[in-house]
């Protein structure tokens, strides 16, 4: 007979409830079960109305993020057994700081809008003719941004970041890390455009380096590091603009941004 634990799951129905409440389910624990397996068990065997997102169940689609005992986790990559011994309770809630659509499903539009704002794509000012062939990149050049490109947009880092909760306009960890991913790409020429959006109290300067985003990231993206590197660079640029006033290139971009 398998061990049993109690899963306390946050339930919220927009039609019925003013705010979420917890519902307890008894679920068996098998050694190889992740939290998502327990949720699927509930949905299949106990209560079909439970609503949550998942898809790949292998830590790559980024849709199954939830708070497990207060920690943002990919539920498909979090073993129940690491939380539960016989008879213990595990709390599952929707990711913190996001509006809740229903039960464990969060509303992501705000994040997606922020993501597009940092222009996470290759920006070129000159387009060399196709006959010139592809852009070549050395392994070293790839290595510079590879870490930041591993992001799966699971938004765990947003749920970990108190600034996201306190300041809803803050662009947030993953979006800034992705901006940095393109800034560090040898094929990209859009750093200044992105800096115009991000060197801002609602961008990098809003971050107080709590560091939680980096700790919870399941893909080791290190968004906190990306933001600090960004700050350091912006500060150095600022110092440089003093030492060599003429050479400060981001100026024209800045006035452009102010006009729009």
């Amino acid at each position, binding site marked *: 007979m398998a061990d049993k634990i109690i899963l306390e799951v946050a339930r919220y129905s927009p039609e019925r409830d003013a705010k979420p409440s917890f519902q307890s389910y008894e679920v068996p624990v098998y050694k190889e079960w992740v939290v998502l397996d327990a949720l699927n068990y509930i949905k299949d065997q106990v209560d079909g109305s439970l609503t949550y997102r998942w898809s790949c169940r292998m830590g790559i689609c980024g849709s199954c993020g939830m708070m497990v005992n207060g920690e943002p986790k990919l539920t498909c990559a979090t073993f129940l057994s690491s939380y539960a011994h016989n008879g213990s309770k595990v709390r599952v809630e929707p990711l913190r700081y996001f509006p809740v659509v229903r039960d464990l499903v969060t509303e992501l539009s705000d994040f997606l809008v922020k993501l597009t704002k940092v222009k996470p794509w290759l920006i070129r000012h000159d387009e060399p003719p196709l006959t010139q062939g592809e852009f070549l990149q050395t392994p070293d050049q790839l290595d510079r941004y590879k870490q930041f490109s591993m992001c799966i947009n699971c938004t765990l880092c947003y749920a970990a970041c108190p600034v996201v909760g306190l300041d809803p306009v803050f662009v947030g960890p993953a979006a800034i890390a992705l901006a940095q991913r393109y800034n560090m790409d040898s094929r990209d020429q859009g750093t200044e455009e992105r800096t115009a959006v991000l060197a801002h*109290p609602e961008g990098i300067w809003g971050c107080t380096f709590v560091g939680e985003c980096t700790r919870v990231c399941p893909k080791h993206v290190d968004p906190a590091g990306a933001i600090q590197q960004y700050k350091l660079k912006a500060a150095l640029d*600022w110092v440089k603009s003093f030492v060599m006033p003429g050479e400060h290139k981001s100026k024209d971009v800045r006035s452009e941004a102010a006009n729009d």
Partner: protein
Amino acid sequence: MERQSNEAFFWTLFSAGGVIAAILIPVHIFLFGLAFPLGWLPAPSYEHMMALVRLPVVRIYLFVLCSLPLFHWAHRFRYTLFDGLQVKHLNEVIFTLCYGGAVVGTVLAGYLLWNMG
């Protein structure tokens, strides 16, 4: 967009102050706040202290030691107040008080060190 360069400026002061505070302040507190008052080490005489403080290098050192960490404090403290107490609406007041304090401290340090006999 003016805030942009301002933030870079304040962050630069914050970081510089953080480095100074991390490297220098522990040993200062250990010596003058603990070791000498508690008699773990023989306290330097008034004359020795004055001889040190008369050196221009030492004065510059002390000025930096007092000024930059204050800006470090101003930056951290203002964010802690904003976030910890959720008092965003007092933004301007807190900003003025924190950086005002840092500027006053810097001026005082300058005055004291300049007029050190």
